[in-house]
């Protein structure tokens, strides 16, 4: 079971959260200007790493806030939790 430290509410079980998938995906500034392929990549292309994954979660059953999590997709260890507006921590970086 994944235990996530909500930046506001503290450690909770995964059942309280919603996983929003990969984070730090940048929406094209001018969608009309990008090609179909680029737009498809924005919509569908995902890193899907075996190991450290930067993803976003929402504490759906708590404060309803989205935040970022750096999680190992094999061991489910959480390496870092940081807010949507924070920068991506370096791999191996400790909790924010």
């Amino acid at each position: 079971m994944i235990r996530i430290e909500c930046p506001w509410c503290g450690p909770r079980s995964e059942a309280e959260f919603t996983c929003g998938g990969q984070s730090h995906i940048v929406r094209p500034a001018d969608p009309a200007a990008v090609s179909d392929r680029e737009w498809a990549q924005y919509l569908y292309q995902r890193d899907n790493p075996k190991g450290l994954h930067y993803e976003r979660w929402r504490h759906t059953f708590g404060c309803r806030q989205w935040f970022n999590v750096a999680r190992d997709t094999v061991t489910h260890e959480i390496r870092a939790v940081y807010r949507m507006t924070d920068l991506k921590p370096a791999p191996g970086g400790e909790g924010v």
Partner: protein
Amino acid sequence: MAKLDRATPLAGTGLERAGLCVAENTGLGLIRLQAFHRRPGAVEELTARLGIEPPGPGSLRSERDRQWFWSAPGEWLIAIPAGTEDAVLGALRAQLDGLFVVLSAITDSQVALDITGEAVREVLARGSTVDFHPASFGAGNCVLTRFAGVPVMLASPGRGEQILLFADRSLARYLLDWFEAASIDC
């Protein structure tokens, strides 16, 4: 008929067992205060205007006949005597005039349950994975959690072992039924 009657979700019904009592609290009026917390200084501004520091995550604060419960970043639930919503809203609006905050009366959207009895913490621990040991959930604490599969706020205002539960009014009957099933051995 001249006026509409008010009827709370459970119309006062509840649950009584040797070790657990669940009773609808119909005496509370509720106001939600939302500030735009992403703007730096927004919360500080608010605090300055209010003259009191609203409680932080996981806690509640009593001030005169108002109880403040933290419910999200920049968002609080304010419990007041039922019926005084308009007066309090007016006062707060005046106090916070000019700030970008949203004040709403949400009394009717919620059901409030008083949960008492020696089995309270044991039964709560059947509905949520939060640690309800007094050492981590004591007087002055409030948590928003997934309880019995639905979002609720649980608060320990400090009156003995009494726990206050807030949930959406539409879930009131479900929650009461759940408590009945979950406390079968109490």
